[in-house]
């Protein structure tokens, strides 16, 4: 493919001679197309076409057995003015995002920092800290709902032993169940912790040594050296955290199933979409809900992206090389 016009032979063959300037490659378009074909067809079949379809469906009343019936903005009107479950789901989702994302970032930094301290044996601790995030979500949720069961579980037994009377009923109490979910999320902090660990280890030791020489305290070197250099990781974690928490489903679904969540304390946006689409077959309405979700995800991500210039320090320039 590349031999047309190229006069020189391999640069490795002749010693002492400078390699000729690189000719422009003839772009192997067919090869590129073939390599991208699976992705491209996937894009059309599983992304582009369904998005257009669901956008149209969001303006219809559609239950699969009967053809879609155009109803204009009625689904959207229902969402905001009639559907209290929607409001509850939205509130729960925003609540858990606002609480758990910063909490997770702080906890990830804390645990990662702990792992950087010891000179020996950090590998073992790292494994132990990371292990829970390897547990499948369904199993983890079931384990937690049992461990935190107020009557049969060991947590409350331990709490009572250390003198806390009437410990909370966790998943069985609508006021506490979301905190149970947050603890479940923190237990699985491993995957987030690892990227912060990588970030912490990337900070040049020389900076810390210089700071120590100048008499900076531990907290000061953290605040002025570590934190700014961690901002790219915080940014990444924040964006993925927002996208992930808006779609929070599995743990909430399994937990509500284990305890019969009457008051919908663990009812989130994705749960509502699931119920509307696949339990009551209100596909048109569910599509409208999905598009609104896309909208708020986009807005939240854009807000974080726009502000990143202000608080994120990239040592190498910017996000894209």
């Amino acid at each position, binding site marked *: 493919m590349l031999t047309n016009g190229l006069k020189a032979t391999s640069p490795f063959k002749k010693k002492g001679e400078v390699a000729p300037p690189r000719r422009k490659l003839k772009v192997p378009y067919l090869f590129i197309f073939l390599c991208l074909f699976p992705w491209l067809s996937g894009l059309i079949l599983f992304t582009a076409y369904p998005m257009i379809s669901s956008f149209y469906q969001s303006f219809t009343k559609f239950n699969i*057995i009967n053809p879609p019936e155009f109803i204009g903005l009625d689904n959207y009107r229902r969402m905001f003015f009639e559907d209290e479950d929607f409001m509850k789901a939205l509130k729960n989702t925003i609540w858990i995002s606002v609480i758990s994302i910063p909490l997770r970032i702080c906890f990830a930094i804390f645990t990662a920092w702990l792992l950087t301290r010891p000179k020996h044996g950090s590998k073992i601790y790292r494994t132990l800290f990371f292990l829970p995030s390897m547990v499948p979500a369904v199993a983890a949720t079931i384990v937690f709902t049992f461990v935190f069961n107020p*009557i049969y579980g060991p947590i409350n037994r331990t709490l009572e032993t250390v003198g806390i009377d009437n410990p909370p009923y966790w998943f069985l109490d609508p006021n506490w169940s979301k905190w149970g979910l947050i603890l479940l999320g923190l237990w699985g902090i491993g995957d987030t912790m690892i990227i912060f660990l990588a970030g912490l280890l990337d900070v040049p030791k020389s900076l810390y040594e210089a700071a120590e020489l100048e008499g900076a305290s531990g907290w000061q070197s953290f605040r002025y050296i570590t934190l700014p250099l961690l901002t790219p990781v915080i940014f990444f974690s924040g964006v993925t955290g927002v996208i992930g928490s808006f779609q929070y489903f599995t743990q909430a679904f399994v937990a509500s199933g284990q305890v019969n969540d*009457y008051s919908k304390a663990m009812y989130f946006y994705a749960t509502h979409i699931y119920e509307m689409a696949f*339990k009551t077959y*209100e596909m048109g309405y569910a599509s409208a809900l999905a598009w609104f979700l896309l909208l708020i995800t986009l807005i939240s991500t854009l807000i974080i992206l726009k502000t990143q210039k202000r608080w994120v320090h990239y040592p190498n320039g910017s996000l894209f090389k």
Partner: protein
Amino acid sequence: MKKSFFASLTVAVLVLSGLVAVSSSASAASNTVTVWTPHTRAWQVAEWKAAIARIQAANPQLDIVLKTGIDMATSMKAIVANKSDGPDISISNGNGNLGWFCGGGEGIWLPLNTMIANRTSGLNLSSTFKTSAVSATISGRVRCALPMPGTEVFGFFYNKDLLAEAGYKNPPKTTAELMGYSKKLTTFDKDGNITRAGFVPKSDYYGWGMESMWLGQAFGARWYNADGSSAFGSDPRWAKMLTWQKKFIADVYGGGDFAKGSKALTKFTASRGDEWGEKHDFITGRVAMKMDANWMATLYCTGDNWELADKCSKVNMGVTGFPTDASVTSTHGGSGVAGYPLAGISKTSKNVKGAWIVLKGLATDTKLSYEYDKVGGAPSPLKAAAAKPSGLPSWYEPFYTIQAHPKSVYHLLPNTGEHKDEDLLATLMAAWQDGAVNDLKGALRDTAEKVDAIVARNQTD
């Protein structure tokens, strides 16, 4: 000569056999009726198989295929997806979702009104089925199902021994008596925890929040007005019932203090015994009186064998209608709630005529009803005397009385999606009993409006 003769003979034979094959496959396709039932227990499956065999024998032109162990949710998915091997007839264990399945005529089950009214192949509902069974099959004006054996009758269970200990010979007849009995039967330990409860009027004790329906029935509260609108807000008996519930929890379990009673009761219900085994609170005596379904009687009677016996080894129990509020005892005294499994013909069925024959056959099969009801203890939906099982224990008789009571009819079933009306009521009760509702009347009106909105949205024009 001979060769050409042979040749033409071969061709003729081939063509003929081809024609036969084509015609027989064509008729086979349109003569298959697939029936999906949710039943899994061996005796159930056996009875249904026998019933199908009887119908098959009486209708040799049909080819009936029975598949068991498929619940209604799965059947619904198959009908919605218009699967080629989907069911012609599907069966739901209860009638709460009838409105959804009928969908005002556009749901997954076909309207049967015309087929029923047909002079030759139709069915006389009022002479074939009991009143409560007939009511369970209509949504608005559309009738899209027939009742199946396996009736569910909700009644009032009481532990005779525990009641006798407390000095009671007869079960409570009114809600006031119920509260009085409970006060006497409830015991506490030294820390103030409930060790035995008389009666638990709380919607998360056992099973799916049916308490709101049962307690509503005890107060004679109506679900829908004559014009089809929700009566939650307009019928004052709902507020009466909920206020009584709160007072009950306060007086019986909290010495007058609702918060105290609620806390104690929540702890009690959180440590209940497993629902499906011999640790059930009613069997261990942790609770003395309970509203529950007839099919739980087998568990309460003989434990994990789930059988009916004249003398129950597990609990010496009695059965009667719900205790009622004094103002409705004359009309509602002795009633409970009767629900029925239902069967309907799929909208996507390719053999509606054949399906109707099978459906009618199943619904009117007295032997099926008799055998089925005998083992499981379910009062038949059929009026025919031959359908009533013999040999059922005498203490079980009240279920028949309850079923026959005119007020035991299940509430109306407009299309509220997946029984959203029951869900909304149960949610309201859950919030109320947690102390999270301040304006009860407003909340009831709110719930009524929501139900009306759902019904309106599901209207077919």
